[in-house]
């Protein structure tokens, strides 16, 4: 048996679909922009790691710092993952999300290289904290705008596809 559906009802159903999906995008935006604890946590880890590596430790010291840093970063991600209430479907991920991630990485990396050049004359004990502080400051300043820019694209990213789908 099939349910007869007129155009008006079908149109209302199509509108109804938008409401729960907007809730998903709201949650995604909230998660992307609201995680101050995570931002400060990753920044603190980054500062300790960069300070340690900036002090020119022996190779095993760099390895030790790297292992501890990656381990703690992983633990932070797992803890965050447990708190997350939903995960956006991969088809909703936009290129802008990857671009924002890459832009923050380039900015932080560039700051580390620049700070390294500018602090060449300083002793490693002083240069390490200076480089780390500069890199973490850039990270924290760029993270918020980058997250918001990426999150905006998830909601607004559907618009061009409307035209593609309908040929209008």
């Amino acid at each position: 048996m099939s349910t007869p559906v007129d155009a008006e009802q079908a149109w209302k159903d199509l509108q109804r679909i938008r409401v729960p999906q907007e809730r998903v995008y709201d949650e995604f935006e909230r998660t992307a922009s609201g995680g101050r604890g995570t931002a400060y946590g990753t920044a603190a880890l980054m500062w300790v790691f960069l300070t340690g590596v900036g002090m020119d430790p022996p190779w095993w010291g760099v390895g030790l710092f790297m292992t501890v840093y990656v381990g703690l970063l992983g633990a932070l991600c797992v803890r965050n993952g447990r708190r997350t209430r939903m995960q956006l479907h991969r088809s909703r991920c936009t290129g802008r999300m990857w671009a924002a991630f890459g832009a923050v990485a380039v900015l932080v990396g560039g700051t580390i290289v620049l700070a390294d050049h500018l602090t060449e004359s300083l002793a490693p004990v002083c240069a390490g904290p200076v480089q780390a502080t500069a890199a973490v400051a850039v990270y924290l300043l760029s993270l918020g705008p980058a997250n918001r820019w990426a999150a905006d694209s998830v909601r607004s990213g559907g618009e061009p596809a409307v035209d593609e789908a309908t040929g209008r």
Partner: protein
Amino acid sequence: MSTPAGFDELIHPATRLSVVALLAATEWADFAFVRDSLSLSDSALSKQLHTLEEAGYLELHKEGGGRTRRTRVRLTDRGRTAFEGHVAALRAIVEGAGRPADDTPSERRHHSGAGR
């Protein structure tokens, strides 16, 4: 009135359509998130989820125990395909009546992203 191919009777009821539409935008979602987003009671949502689970449209994963127990809901490939077909059928009905199907941005974005 003939019903276009892809029209899914199981998804058609309003509550189920909302549940599936929400899940279609996610890899998975917590039971509590779905319940709060759709303003449903635990029992009403459970009933709909079990109906959809029996049809193979979604999977329920229970994790943890005690106070940390949580249930994750995930749309299966079958459920996703059924939802896409149902939306296409609704659009065909609207466009068949000479009225342009108003944009449902997130859903159409989903279609365009499916091939990625």
